[in-house]
């Protein structure tokens, strides 16, 4: 538990909650990142632009943070790229099939009291834990 950072985690979380609140209050939209990413592929122009701006904002927010806190984030360097690519593919496939990710189900859906989102969040948490267990403690990669 030497890396335990509850305060910055909670504070960052409240910013994420505020971001989701702002998008619903002003635009009537849910801040589900996988949905917003996916709909860039097939939205009409009027719908496309706000989604693009949201994603640009995500990049910009991280950029700003990095600018205020240089050296806070150091990228991982020794992780196998094939594992990353297969993982990314499954993240894309699964979030589309299950209509949401950590933000859409885990934050917006749960905040909206949706049984589907509560169930989805429990399932992806459990399958994430089982996957990390297998990779780190059975196969022995990345531990």
């Amino acid at each position, binding site marked *: *538990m030497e*890396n*335990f*950072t*509850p*305060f910055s*985690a*909670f*504070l*960052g*979380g*409240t*910013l*994420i*909650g*505020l*971001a989701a609140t702002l998008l*619903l209050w*002003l635009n*009537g939209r849910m*801040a589900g*990142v996988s949905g917003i990413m996916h709909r860039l*592929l097939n939205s009409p122009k009027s719908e496309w*632009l*706000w989604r693009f701006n*949201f994603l640009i904002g*995500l*990049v*910009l*927010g991280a950029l700003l943070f*990095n600018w205020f806190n240089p050296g806070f*984030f150091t*990228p*991982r360097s020794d992780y196998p790229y094939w594992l*990353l690519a*297969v*993982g*990314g*593919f*499954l993240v*894309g*496939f*699964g979030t589309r*099939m*299950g*209509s949401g990710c950590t*933000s859409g189900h885990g934050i917006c859906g*749960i*905040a909206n009291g949706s049984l*589907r989102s509560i*169930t*989805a969040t429990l*399932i*992806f948490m*459990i*399958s*994430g834990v089982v996957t990390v267990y297998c*990779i*780190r403690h059975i196969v022995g990669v*990345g531990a």
Partner: protein
Amino acid sequence: MKHCLAALLSGTLFGFGLSLSQMTDPNKVLGFLDVAGSWDPSLAFVMMGALAVSVIAFRFILKRPKPIWAEEFHVARKKSLDKPLLFGAMIFGIGWGMSGYCPGPAVAGLGLGNPEAFVMVASIYLGFIAQGIWARKCFKKSVTVDA
């Protein structure tokens, strides 16, 4: 135009929050999912922080007749659990555990100049496209079975 400004503002706040909470750090994410190793529960606090705001705020907002700058709220109306939801969530969890990134941090990671983020975003889009093709095939099959 107003929509775009709101989305940009929301996205920026979101990306800043993801970075501050270290959701953008795959080691942190995998440390959270690694309950059998040296477990780091920090990321549970991200969810608590986000829900502390949104659970209360959504209640008030959704009582209003409509959003400030739009005609209606776009909220999922589906209530029932179905196989795509359950299997999709399971597959997403596997990918999350393999990579250490969910979609938001993958995109935000581009702003941190993280080379892994580029691989993630590209492979997430490949997954989207593959799922679309696969779903269309299944749909066709079930139509022919029904006929």
